């Protein structure tokens, strides 16, 4: 090791990256207000805060995607101007953002080396490309085929490609923005192991997450942001969940999972030996009754989302039946399903859920304008529409309650609330929530759970599909576990435990 006086990466005292008095001013909004932040070599520094607290702004400044309004960024003690992502990379700062930077039509290896393709005498060297791509994937322990086209990969695997891409340049600072949001438990474990390896080599990691268990699991220090201010920087291992939530929200949230009384009535959804044409679902049978929350757990790609999408008419059925309130609705279009009171909340709100450039009002009322009272003869009643939207915004507690604002200008949590409000715009008997809390902060998460609980108490049938294990464990009255398109197990009441459920997540020997 070097003596303390030199600027060595491995020096624990000298910060790898330091922010001094950083201010970022957007028109009308002060996103960061004199933020001080330090990342030491070899540590995992967690950034924690609600949506809109300034986490994303801070990392986009560090990654060179934006420039601060005032303040200084120092890399290894030297003041620097991070004018571009390219410059930041040269300085050893690599970021993995939530929004993917992959070209869907290219293969995994082509994406990994995009802009830095191995060459021989001016031409692309396919062999070297394959070799080096395999080396990176092997080092990370990712089981990906380098020749696979990215667009055909599930989201979790796309995320893995994204992470692998950041590791190509051997960064000294790695920024991970909710890296586990779409990873399964085992993939997340691999990532954690990897983080251990690289931090041991002196790499500093800035880690953003909404999952509290991860903070203690991987974090060394945690910095809590609120409204653009640093509230505190604490020892990640020694700080309790409730303390973190309190710091983050500025108030005490006692319990994020509400208690939902189980009072099942008539069967609403009855699926019998359903198989989809794509074989993503194979012979699955489930039922959901009014007044209960039924969960489906499983790995990504286990067919849990596809099961609901097949029922809803988004994927084609090859055999089996779907009954809604006793009526055979197998293979009907999703339009017909909606009319019969079957609502499906898609997992990817930007991709399938919202028109981001249209107002909150138009988004919420979209499925209700074809019917009375909003439809009056050939025309729309603007009053009725505004009335409906005002009521629903109130119900989901959208803050700020501005129905005319473009949905794209709301934070992720608020966008999810708009999507929930949409589900109430017309009469629904069966709600299917597919990953309802992806990428939302703890306070919104608690609000969404309360919302689901209220629906259930009002007598709706609810199917909750989630890759977030604590979520389905806590919320479900009954829980199905899927593996490779089949229902592996069903639990109810006290049998729903992490241990019981996890043992059915993977292939069982001699099963």
């Amino acid at each position: 090791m070097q003596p303390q006086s030199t600027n060595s990466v491995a020096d624990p005292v000298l910060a790898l990256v330091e922010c001094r008095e950083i201010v970022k001013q957007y028109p009308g909004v002060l996103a960061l207000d004199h933020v001080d932040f330090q990342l030491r070599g070899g540590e995992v520094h967690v950034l924690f805060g609600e949506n809109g607290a300034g986490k994303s702004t801070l990392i986009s400044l560090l990654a060179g995607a934006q420039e601060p309004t005032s303040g200084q960024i120092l890399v290894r003690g030297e003041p620097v101007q991070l004018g571009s992502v390219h410059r930041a990379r040269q300085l050893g700062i690599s970021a993995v953002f939530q929004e993917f930077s992959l070209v869907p039509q290219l293969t995994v290896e082509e994406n990994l080396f995009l802009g830095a393709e191995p060459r021989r005498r001016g031409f692309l060297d396919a062999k070297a490309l394959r070799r080096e791509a395999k080396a990176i994937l092997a080092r990370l322990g990712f089981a990906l085929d380098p020749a696979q086209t990215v667009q055909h990969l599930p989201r979790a695997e796309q995320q893995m490609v994204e992470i692998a891409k950041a590791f190509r340049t051997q960064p000294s600072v790695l920024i991970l923005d909710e890296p586990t949001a779409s990873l399964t438990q085992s993939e997340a474990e691999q990532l954690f192991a990897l983080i251990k390896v690289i931090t041991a080599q002196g790499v500093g990691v800035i880690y953003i997450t909404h999952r509290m268990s991860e903070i203690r699991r991987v974090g060394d220090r945690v910095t809590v942001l609120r409204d653009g201010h640093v509230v505190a920087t604490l020892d990640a291992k020694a700080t309790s969940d409730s303390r973190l939530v309190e710091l983050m929200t500025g108030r005490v949230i006692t319990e994020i999972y509400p208690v939902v009384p189980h009072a099942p009535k008539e069967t609403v959804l009855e699926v019998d030996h359903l198989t989809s044409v794509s074989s993503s679902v194979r012979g699955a049978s489930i039922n959901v009754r009014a007044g209960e929350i039924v969960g489906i757990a499983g790995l990504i790609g286990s067919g849990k989302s596809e099961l609901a999408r097949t029922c809803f008419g988004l994927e084609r059925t090859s055999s089996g039946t779907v009954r809604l309130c006793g009526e055979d609705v197998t293979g009907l279009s999703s339009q017909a399903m909606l009319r019969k009171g079957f609502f499906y909340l898609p997992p990817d709100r930007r991709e399938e859920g919202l028109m981001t450039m249209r107002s909150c009002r138009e988004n919420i009322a979209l499925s209700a304008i074809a019917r009375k009272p909003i439809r009056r003869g050939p025309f729309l009643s603007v009053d009725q529409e505004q009335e409906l939207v005002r009521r629903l915004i109130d119900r989901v507690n959208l803050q700020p309650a501005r129905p005319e604002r473009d949905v794209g200008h709301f934070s992720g949590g608020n966008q999810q609330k708009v999507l929930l409000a949409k589900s109430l715009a017309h009469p629904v008997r069966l709600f299917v929530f597919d990953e309802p809390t992806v990428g939302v902060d703890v306070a919104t998460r608690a609000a969404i759970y309360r919302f689901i609980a209220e629906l259930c108490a009002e007598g709706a049938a609810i199917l909750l599909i989630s890759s977030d294990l604590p979520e389905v464990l806590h919320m479900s009255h009954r829980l199905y576990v899927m593996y490779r398109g089949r229902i592996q197990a069903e639990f109810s009441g006290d049998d729903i435990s992490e241990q019981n459920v996890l043992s059915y997540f993977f292939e069982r020997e001699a099963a």
Partner: protein
Amino acid sequence: MNQVAELPPTTATRAVRLTQRLFVRMGVLPFLLLVAVIVFTAISDHFLSTQNLINVVRQSVYLTIVSLAQMLALLTGGFDLSVGTIVALTSVVGAAAMAAVSAASPDSVWLAITLGCLAGIVAGTLVGVTNGVGVAVFNVSPFMMTLGIASVGFGIALYMTGGVPVYGMPPEFGRVFGFGRVAGVPVPVIVAILIAALTWVLVNRTALGRYFYAVGGNVKAAHLSGISTRWTLFITYTLCGLLSAVCGMLLTARLETGEANIGASMPLESIAACVIGGVSLRGGVGRVGNVVLGALFIGLVQNGMNLAKIESYLQTVVLGSLLILAVIADQLRLRLIASMRD
């Protein structure tokens, strides 16, 4: 959240901020309009005269109607390159039918006009229906479908006429629908105002209109909200054909002949009018009022260039550049909006 660390704003920064806000809200149009008025007023004394401005409005009628048609296609995230062909085919078919009926029974002038208009508008609308079937049912991209149909329709119009104008319409047709006035207002202007009003009601006050925005805004979300995206797209291109056809008949009345060669500049000019009027090429965003202003602006520029004695060949250079300028401005605007997000 809203504690803004502000220095006391100077007049200059306040002006910049106001300009930015105006740009974000209204797009590039007010700025272009201002520049055009200043430039052309400086070049020609006649430019700002009432008589000339009325001329501009009258000449812009045709582009306005086609731009409203184009807006419907743009709202759903597509576009229609065949609007010019529809105008031409309508003109040829309408004029031929009118001339034929008029020749068969020279006394019933209004029967000839009615049947002729009907024939022309049905022909134009059928082109729109074909576009609709291609885009909605067979999932052909709007670009390929309307480009192909533009060639097909233009070929049919030329084949029918042999490239020669169609004469023989009753003179009353031109006298009323081309040059007529009601209460001092030219008839084509009245028709355009009516169409603009109806289009406004359609997109703002009916479910179908809302679905145009929804399909262009997020096709998957629209589908999951129970909207028939195919039907919506089909109607979009059919209506686009219908409106363009109405324009075709009005233009025929003005020219007093059926021509296969009119409308060639319509696709470019109508898309330019829409984009300058703030309609997004990605779909889901656009307002009727701004599109009308966009079309008027293009009419104003053409008129100004005529007064300034700029050659017609050079005029197309200016129009093309304006279109590209508008698209670049739209990109800048998106960037500005993105930087204002919280």
